[in-house]
């Protein structure tokens, strides 16, 4: 593959999943953010998961 960033399906459409099995769409989105925005996103994600964990514990 000339460009490791591209991973084409047989029909020529680019897939967000690389040869290593990683869906790169989240990484590409994160790279459009500033480092501070990335930190905020990471914090939000972690707090959402903590909230889900608490909700599960209640049941």
């Amino acid at each position, binding site marked *: 593959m000339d460009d*490791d*960033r591209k991973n084409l399906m047989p029909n020529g459409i680019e897939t967000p999943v*690389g040869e*290593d*099995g*990683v869906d*790169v769409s*989240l*990484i*590409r989105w*994160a*790279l459009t*953010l500033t*480092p*501070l925005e*990335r*930190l*905020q*996103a*990471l*914090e939000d*994600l*972690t*707090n959402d*998961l*903590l*909230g889900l*964990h*608490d909700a599960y514990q209640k049941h």
Partner: protein
Amino acid sequence: MPTKSIDFQGLLAELIDAEVDFIVVGGVAAGFHGLIIATGDLDLVYSRDSQNLERLERVLLRIDGCYRMKPEVKPLASRFDGPGHHNLSTRYGKLDLLGSIVGGEGYKELIDRTEVVPLSAGRAVRVLDLPSLIRVKEQLTDEKDKYHLTLLKRLLVERMPK
């Protein structure tokens, strides 16, 4: 009891304002570089310089710092002068203070492999650079670390200039 939410920005701001010398490593460092995965704690390698340990103690006591497994033990400067790890709780969430990381490297050895990342209100933080984060992960063997290593390597490819 509900799990306390985390506030990494608040915790970093406290440490920066207290002029503590440290390097962000682990999941939050990966997040700064562009790999957003949930992480329950902030991992820092701190300078073991005695004045820095005094500053660290002062801020930790102010933000209700205590050992997670032994809340009655205060995080005093005298405890931090070795290469070990200290798993603490604070009012902002979990904080893991590392005297060194795998391979025995501490603040002095790592400082040249960091990037300065701007935060809000004119603050900035030192973060271990991506190639070094990958080298650290390569030395870890648990399944979660292996998975994160794959993601970090992909991130490195994605960050290369096109």
